[in-house]
């Protein structure tokens, strides 16, 4: 590869980094602008919008509501997803391919169709739109991601460790709890953080299954439909900083845990 090509490729990479970051940086800057009018240039700066959202009961309430939904749906997806992964990984049984297909289905269905299918199913099951319905839809949607991550980790588990445990007299359950489970913990933690972020950021399912209380993305969407305002910038910036911080922490954590175990 010639030197010219290499420089050209490096330029494309950095241009892509700019494409990915510039819109977010502009959005953050706009949240500090001392004017209700969204647009450049910015002449004077203020923290007013932040003090305003942090003293706004509705915004704070919505934030807490979204966090509770994310945590509860994550707990369900992790429990179910891990169970499915243990069933599917390294086991041959009749209908395994079909079971695997069913497992990944929610991850492949386009967002709007998934939301509508859940909406119809919720009415059939007589689940009222609201917190329970949102938690349920997020949990079902996130199960495939947990299962895939846990299956990948399980496939690297040395089978001899389980056999050794069984030889020493452990029954299958104790062997699972003492050998398999600790081995899976880093993968499960990584998957949990991923689920938390997916649920916290989800718009389309929360929108179609929500009652009168909006989640944070639904609130931002509703505010946007009535016009842009620096308050939205402040709310979005807080959400962005939190998600990015949790994501980076999880990435570092899982990398360290993986290094430690091998």
């Amino acid at each position, binding site marked *: *590869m010639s030197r010219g*090509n*290499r420089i050209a*490729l490096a330029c494309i*990479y950095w241009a*892509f980094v700019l*494409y*990915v*970051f510039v*819109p*977010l940086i*502009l959005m953050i800057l706009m949240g500090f602008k001392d004017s209700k009018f*969204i*647009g*450049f240039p910015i002449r004077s700066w203020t923290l007013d919008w932040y003090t305003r959202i942090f003293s706004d009961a509705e915004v704070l309430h919505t934030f807490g509501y979204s966090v509770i939904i994310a945590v509860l749906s994550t707990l369900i997806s992790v429990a*179910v997803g891990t*169970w*499915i992964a243990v*069933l599917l990984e390294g*086991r041959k049984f009749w209908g395994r391919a079909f079971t695997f297909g069913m*497992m990944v289905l929610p991850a*492949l269905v*386009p*967002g*709007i*169709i*998934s939301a*509508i*299918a*859940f*909406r*119809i*199913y919720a009415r059939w099951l007589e689940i009222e739109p609201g917190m329970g319905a949102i938690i349920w839809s997020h949990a*079902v949607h996130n*199960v495939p991601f947990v299962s895939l991550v846990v299956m990948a980790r399980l496939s690297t588990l*040395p089978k001899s*460790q389980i056999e*050794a445990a069984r030889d020493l*007299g452990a*029954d299958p*359950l*104790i*062997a699972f*709890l*003492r050998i398999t489970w600790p081995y899976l913990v880093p993968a499960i933690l990584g998957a949990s953080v991923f689920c938390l*972020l997916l649920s916290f*950021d989800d*718009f389309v399912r929360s*929108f179609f299954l929500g009652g009168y209380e909006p989640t944070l*993305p639904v609130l*931002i*969407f509703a505010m*946007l439909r009535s016009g842009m305002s620096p308050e939205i*910038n402040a709310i979005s910036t807080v*959400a*962005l900083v939190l*998600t*990015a911080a949790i*994501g980076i922490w999880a990435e570092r954590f899982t*990398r360290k845990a993986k290094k430690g175990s091998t």
Partner: protein
Amino acid sequence: MSNEASVSNAPDGLAKTEGERSFWGWLANWGPYQTLMSVVTLSPRRQFFILAAFPILWLLTQHLGPMLQMLHVSLLDAYPVAPDVAQEFSLESYLKFFGDHIFWMPLFRTLIFAAVFTLSTLLITYPVAYFLARHVSRKNQMLMLLILLIPFWVGEIVRTYAIMILLGNTGALNLALKWLGLIDRPIPFMYTSFSMGLGIVYLTALYMLLPLYSALEKLPKSYNEAAADLGAGAWTRFRRVTLPLTIEGISSGCTLVFLISTGFYATPVLLGGPSTTVFAETIAGFFHVAGDEWPTGAAFAVIMFLVALLITGVFQRLMKSLRKGDSS
């Protein structure tokens, strides 16, 4: 950890005979637990059914259930069914789709848009993935990939809003163009297929980048060197070696991005204009009005899902034959 080490390190509680001191030893020797385990582990077959019952039930009722119920509702002539009226099946909702261009045009448009956005994402991210996989040292690779991951943890709505600020009439792009003296009056980027495309590519780029990166990363450098030794130029090496051997990554990235970009609802609503109504908006419309429009909405969702699956299926078949054709 080697096998020997793991055996000798085996926790003492594992052995039923010597485990009295630990919780695990106590559990293993506890009467009710032993009875339970002797019932459960009587045969491997029974053990398997106990392990499998819950997940299979979950998959059938939670993963397949919503899709089947959607299909069911799409075939009804009214929903919800009134208590003293018998359920009537009809294909009316499906026929409605073909009857009016305000229904099938948005689907057609959505598919064209999704194809264009998928191709754009591929063209934008391939060089990026190529650069990361081939020209960056292993240590920096993870860091540079991690940098790109950060914005992708941020949700759909926030990133769509960021694009709105970039492209608005008083947005940064117009300001920059004006400052450079290229324009006098702002260009209305917003509420066009361009703004919508930029937003959707922004949202889906990572789903393309990661499969491409892993395909390129797996490709041994020696293949390219061998081709060079045999006298192939840079372009020939790329076209005859790199491209065919990364088709798997291209194919899975494109499938993923295509399916995801047909499913966007909020982004087209916020960034698109009246001439870019996508099928997601059409479908959603039936759920914001009276209940008896639900069969139509369900039927349209089924049509969209089947068409999207058909297209990605044909596409994957095509890519597979392309790969075979090249390797022979």
